[in-house]
């Protein structure tokens, strides 16, 4: 579910809606009989349900016709740009080996994106520093373990993982996206559905790299 505080206009609209609803119910309760209060609540609930149905219909319609997009290839014509998206698997040996293999290929350029895993509650309250620190620490360790001559780079993101990928598609312009997860959903890890969501949105090949926890971890 998208946070109502995701952007300034959304937060403003949400607060305005809450204020109007609370005010209407409070006025009805203070000045009118009980049936008026109940009627106001019924109107509010119906309005919210109607809005929800409308949004679902818009979403379903959008999903019916998937439109994927991608910018033109950037860099030299023979360069292959690979975007690796990972968080809790960043320091797994299997992941590091995969990055080394990809970055060793001729004219390959690898970029690692580590979206911070922020729960809906934490995003609502803005408590994202801990998740950002975790992502930063994992990415730094991964970059330290990969030989520098391979030229791998990376960055963290505080945005929703899919939006973080969208930003990276616009700035890094990958020719291929690889999303690394644990397979099953783990707390503090990327959603295993992320790859299928990315496949629906971007006109570049998107593959999954499932990494099991190493025994030493």
């Amino acid at each position, binding site marked *: 579910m998208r946070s109502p505080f995701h952007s300034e206009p959304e937060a403003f609209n949400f607060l305005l809606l809450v204020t109007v609803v609370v005010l209407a119910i409070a006025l009805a309760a203070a000045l009118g009989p009980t049936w008026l209060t109940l009627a106001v609540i019924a109107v509010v609930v119906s309005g919210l349900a109607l809005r929800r149905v409308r949004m679902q219909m818009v979403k379903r*319609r959008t999903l019916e*016709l998937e439109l994927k997009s991608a910018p*033109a290839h950037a860099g030299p014509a023979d360069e292959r740009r690979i975007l690796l998206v990972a968080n809790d698997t960043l320091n797994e040996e299997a992941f590091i080996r995969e990055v080394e293999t990809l970055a060793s290929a001729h004219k390959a350029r690898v970029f690692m994106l580590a979206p911070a895993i922020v729960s809906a509650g934490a995003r609502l309250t803005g408590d994202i520093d801990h998740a950002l620190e975790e992502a930063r620490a994992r990415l730094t360790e991964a970059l330290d373990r990969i030989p520098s001559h391979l030229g791998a780079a990376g960055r963290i993101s505080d945005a929703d993982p899919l939006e973080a990928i969208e930003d990276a598609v616009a700035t890094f312009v990958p020719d291929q996206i690889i999303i690394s997860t644990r397979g099953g959903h783990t707390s503090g890890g990327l959603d295993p559905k992320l790859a299928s969501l990315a496949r629906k949105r971007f006109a570049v090949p998107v593959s999954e790299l499932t990494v099991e926890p190493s025994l030493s971890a």
Partner: protein
Amino acid sequence: MLVEHPDEAAGLAIASGLRFAGYAVAVCSGPQEPGQCPLCGIDGCATAHDADLVVSCLGFEREVGREVMEALRTRCPDVPLLIVAAPVTDPDLRQLLDGREMLPDGCYTLRAPATPEEIVAAVQQLLGDQTEELSSRA
């Protein structure tokens, strides 16, 4: 550049070729049922309207393909359309297409099956020709 292809992998292969040729791409798998494409409805399709060129691989055999191509010609007449399709051999379908004037001016065809490289070459030729035409007009 808008690529319409019912097969996801084939659409991505064409998109990849076009991206490496320097074009930003959008890929649409096309509608499953008639009337599903926003281009045929009141909303229209901003991607199709704004495209420099549309590559349609939806084919003439299915009603949805014919519907989208007809909508592309009537709603976006200024957008060049490259149709990648097998020659129509069925006489009934031929008659139907003739009646609907599916291939008016601004519509180019490439015989299917065509490789992504052939499609990219056709796109480059079409857009190159248009640029030359515009330059000579200026």
